């Protein structure tokens, strides 16, 4: 079977700019002032280093690693936001990234308007949104509040709304930075069911998380990142042991 995601020797170097490297400096460099020859070097942060792996349909990959190990960078690369400095990235399928569920949210808009905006931003068509909207409204248990600006919502209410929107998506490949929060306790049983259905529809899932439980629940594979390169890839338990063993 063909891999849906393939990474070959990917490196990402993020340039670091400071004041000295701003406009003034560039002009001076262009003018060829000899004192500044040393400035021709640029500073980079190596966020990913020679990362290669592939994901087949059905793989649910958990990405673990300490802060600064490159988890977010890797997800952003997969979401086509970061472009690799070196190497190739091939993706066959539609990728949806849920890095922050509140993207496109506007506090002065009503719940309904926000469902539309967030749905559009996440790549749904108007038709898809009108098909899903009843389900979202019903699930979020907002009742008449759905017509009020979300500024008036309690934290739990807006969490339920974002949760309902996020779980109504049907992507091939889902990228997540940490799991989706479901809000207050009475909501969680229903939410868990919905989450299960949601994850069941996915072809593939890549989730970066610090929570071992989340990785155990969702994933059948795991990647351990360390200083931007893959330290190990394999079964969930094996990788989690290695991750904690290294502490």
């Amino acid at each position, binding site marked *: 079977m063909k891999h849906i995601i393939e990474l070959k020797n990917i490196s990402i170097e993020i340039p670091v700019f400071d004041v000295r490297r*701003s406009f003034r400096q560039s002009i001076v460099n262009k003018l060829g002032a000899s004192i500044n020859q040393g400035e*021709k070097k640029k*500073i980079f*942060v190596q966020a990913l280093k020679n990362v290669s792996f592939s994901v087949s349909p059905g793989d649910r990959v958990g990405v673990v690693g300490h802060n600064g190990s490159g988890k*977010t*960078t890797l997800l952003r690369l997969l979401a086509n936001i970061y472009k690799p400095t070196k190497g190739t990235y091939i993706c066959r399928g539609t990728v949806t990234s849920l890095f922050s569920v509140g*993207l496109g949210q506007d506090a002065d808009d009503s719940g309904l308007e926000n469902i539309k905006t967030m749905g559009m931003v996440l*790549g749904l068509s108007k038709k898809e949104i009108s098909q899903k909207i009843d389900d979202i409204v019903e699930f979020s248990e907002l009742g008449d509040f759905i017509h009020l600006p979300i500024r008036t919502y309690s934290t739990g209410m807006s969490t339920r709304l974002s949760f309902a929107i996020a779980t109504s998506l049907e992507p091939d490949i889902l990228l997540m930075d940490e799991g989706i929060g479901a809000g207050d306790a009475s909501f969680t049983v229903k939410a868990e069911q919905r989450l299960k259905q949601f994850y069941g529809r996915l072809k593939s899932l890549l989730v970066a998380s610090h929570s071992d439980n989340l990785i155990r629940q969702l994933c059948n594979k795991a990647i351990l990142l360390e*200083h931007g390169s893959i330290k190990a890839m394999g079964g969930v338990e094996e990788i989690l042991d290695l991750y904690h063993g290294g502490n």
Partner: protein
Amino acid sequence: MAKASEALYELDRDEYKDDRSFLKYFLSGAGDYFGAFKRWRLLVYLANAEMTKTYKRTIIGPFWATLSMGIFIGSMGILFSLLWHTDIKTYLPFFSSGYIVWMLFSGIVTGSCATFTSMEGYIKQIDLPYSFYAFMLICRNLIVFVHQLSIFVVVALVFKVPFTVDTFMVVPALLLLILNCSWITILLGVICTRFRDMQQIVISLLQIAMFITPIFWSESQLSHSKMSFFCIQLNPIYHVISIVRYPLMGEATPLSGWLINIAILLVGWMITMYVLGRKYSKLVYWL
């Protein structure tokens, strides 16, 4: 924010170069530009949402800006027509049409410095073509422009500006202006993302440009001096603005005006596509 590994290291600039050709960069930039057109549904939706938002919780919404601009145009129009002993019947329509188009142009150019930096939240979350953010900025300014246009309509009705066949040319003229703005927005957006000082430079240059370009004063006032050649014929901003102003005044735009605008569009657009393609993979790291 991107979590990067702690290891900072230095890399030679030459090592960073790759050997792609002009055409490849150009095509990659153009791919992004036309890719953004494919997302027109989202664009229309967001523009529409933005429009309704401006009306929210205020009685006359964006017309507040229109009102203050109307007062400005009215008082300046009277002042300058007195100062220069020109007839207010001809001066006010001339000034208001030029000033409204100028405000559209300068609004877009000022905003273009923050095309990408202000949308960092989006750019780092979802995969949309970079040009999309430029189009969004233009849409936002066009909405304002449509409101401001009502000032000119009032002026035109009061002072009986002729409504002729040429008036309809305002549609293609505006389209050309928008297309020109689209490349300016992307180009300045890319440059200002990398060099944050550029924004201040652009803003101060724009201020000067407003007075150099015949907006407050008319072309005929400068007669045929060397200065007039510099401020009018050699001034691309003049051509970009006047192409919309002529039809608004019910006059025919000279053929040279159209040709110059099309030439600016072609050259500017091609350079922009090259720059965008060239910096495509690096832009997000500059944010």
